[in-house]
């Protein structure tokens, strides 16, 4: 952009890019390889290219997907991430609108924003014990509902911060025109603002889903059997049957694919989301 690149430089840069891509993609490739290798091939050296160096098989995929616990875990993870993301975006959008359009005292808006962001500082392990005791008290241990509530809480800063920025970028005259036509404040929000921020809303929802899907500490602490989600079920491939690389491969793929697909769908908003709105990207 600024300086002209010489041919040698561009080869060098191309090389660096190539190495970076290999480095990023290799673990995914290896997980996939393990999932289609016969057990003996997973422990053998020199089995990197399917068909050429080993005969691939789909048997692990078929046998893993027929396990009731894994289907249940996929269902649990889906419920948890959908539920948590929806709750979080619902509460977050309302708060985002309030912070973008109304004034809360002299520096109330900035303080509220900082307060929402500061939720990300809290190490989850600090609150996992009280949550465990509270959920036991409420008979909500091993219940997906408790994980929906907790993941909604810990993803709430994302919609608040990202969407309040988006709403601030819209001209307030849009709603004022609707008020003149007799719309209430709430109608101005639902009929004028919501349709305009829809792309951001969907992206934020997707980011929250990915985070809730990947969450491990609460899932591990608060589930024992029927509410176990995917990140916890991977462990089963190790403890009950010794380390079985082929099953680990399938479970790792099953666990990682959804959040990765989500991430690609929400690409445009990810930098903004992960820096809590500080960098637009």
């Amino acid at each position, binding site marked *: 952009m600024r300086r002209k690149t010489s041919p040698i430089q561009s080869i060098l840069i191309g090389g660096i890019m190539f190495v970076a891509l290999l480095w990023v993609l290799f*673990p995914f490739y*290896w997980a996939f390889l393990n999932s289609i290798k016969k057990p003996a091939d997973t422990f053998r050296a020199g089995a990197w290219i399917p068909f050429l160096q080993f005969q691939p098989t789909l048997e692990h995929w078929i046998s893993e997907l027929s396990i009731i616990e894994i289907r249940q875990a996929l269902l649990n993870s889906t419920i948890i991430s959908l539920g948590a993301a929806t709750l979080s975006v619902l509460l977050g959008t309302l708060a985002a609108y309030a912070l973008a359009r109304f004034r809360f005292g002299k520096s109330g808006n900035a303080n509220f924003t900082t307060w929402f962001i500061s939720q990300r500082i809290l190490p989850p392990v600090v609150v996992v014990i009280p949550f465990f005791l509270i959920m036991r008290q409420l008979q909500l241990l091993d219940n997906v509902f408790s994980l929906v509530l907790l993941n909604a809480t810990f993803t709430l800063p994302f919609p608040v911060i990202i969407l309040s920025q988006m709403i601030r970028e819209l001209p307030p005259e849009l709603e004022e025109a609707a008020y003149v036509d007799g719309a209430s404040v709430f109608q101005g929000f639902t009929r004028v603002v919501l349709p305009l921020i829809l792309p951001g809303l969907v992206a934020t929802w997707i980011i929250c889903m990915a985070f809730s899907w990947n969450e491990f500490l609460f899932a591990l602490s608060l589930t024992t059997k029927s509410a176990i989600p995917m990140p916890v079920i991977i462990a089963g491939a190790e403890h009950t049957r010794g380390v079985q690389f082929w099953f680990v491969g399938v479970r790792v793929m099953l666990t990682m694919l959804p959040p990765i697909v989500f991430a690609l769908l929400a690409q445009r908003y990810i930098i903004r989301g992960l820096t809590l709105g500080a960098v637009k990207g």
Partner: protein
Amino acid sequence: MAATDSTKPQARRTDRTKFWFLGPAVVWILVFTIFPLLYALYTSFFSFRFGKINQFVGLANFGRLFTDSNLHNGLRVTLTFVIVTVTIQMLLGFGLALLLNREMRGKNILRAIMILPLFATPVAMGYLGITLFYEINGPINELIRAFGGSDIPWLSNPFWAQVAIILIDIWQWTPFVFLVSLAALQGLPADLFEAAEVDGASGWQSFRRITLPLMAPVLWLILLLRLVEAFKVFDIPTSLTLGGPGRATEVYSLFTYRTALRFFDHGYAAAQGFLLLIIVSLIVGLLFGRIRSIYQEERN
């Protein structure tokens, strides 16, 4: 600026309405974070037996923090992890962003692929790590052998086990530093660099005098976000090494988790949690001041 003027009749109606918008989220967070924190504070004053409150012990749980060598081990392991991973991620991520900050083909694909590790389930990466770092015929040792090295005892040696969890975290989070710095670099005003070039500034000079000062606030912010997340580390050591061999990778969160949910010593675990919260808050406090002062310098 966007706020409604309070003299308009419309404004009076919004005075109450605005709390209906903000209220639910605020109440939600109060219920789900402040209340558990208070509850944790309460339990930290008690000893537990069979997972039930046994008796009031005052500050005894906090006193144990000073003498528990396993806790100190967890703190040491975590600090090492945080310092090493965050330093490497910052240098590597920012360095790559500087190198690739130019017009080139395939930039969108590169960006899309760099996003993938950020969203790869960390605990899945830990289990995948077991197969990647497999000591006998794992792909990493196979590569090392191909280049003439000898097998590394990744998971059975305390030092190499730490290296393994650090490598996975670097794999996962360097792209974050890269993507954010690249986005910020591309937002820098191009005319400043052109002017510097006209004035005969060398590449190093314009980096030192223009790029670095302009990037400083973003870099401090990335550092802050990375530090906060790195202190929470739990998933990867729990899945890859189970804290072992011995206690070589037993990070703070894992030790506290075990105190609470394996030994059911809830009161002591709560005290440990507060120590971690205090440490992280102190670091955030220190850096937050730094970030704000840089922003203010910029404005003057």
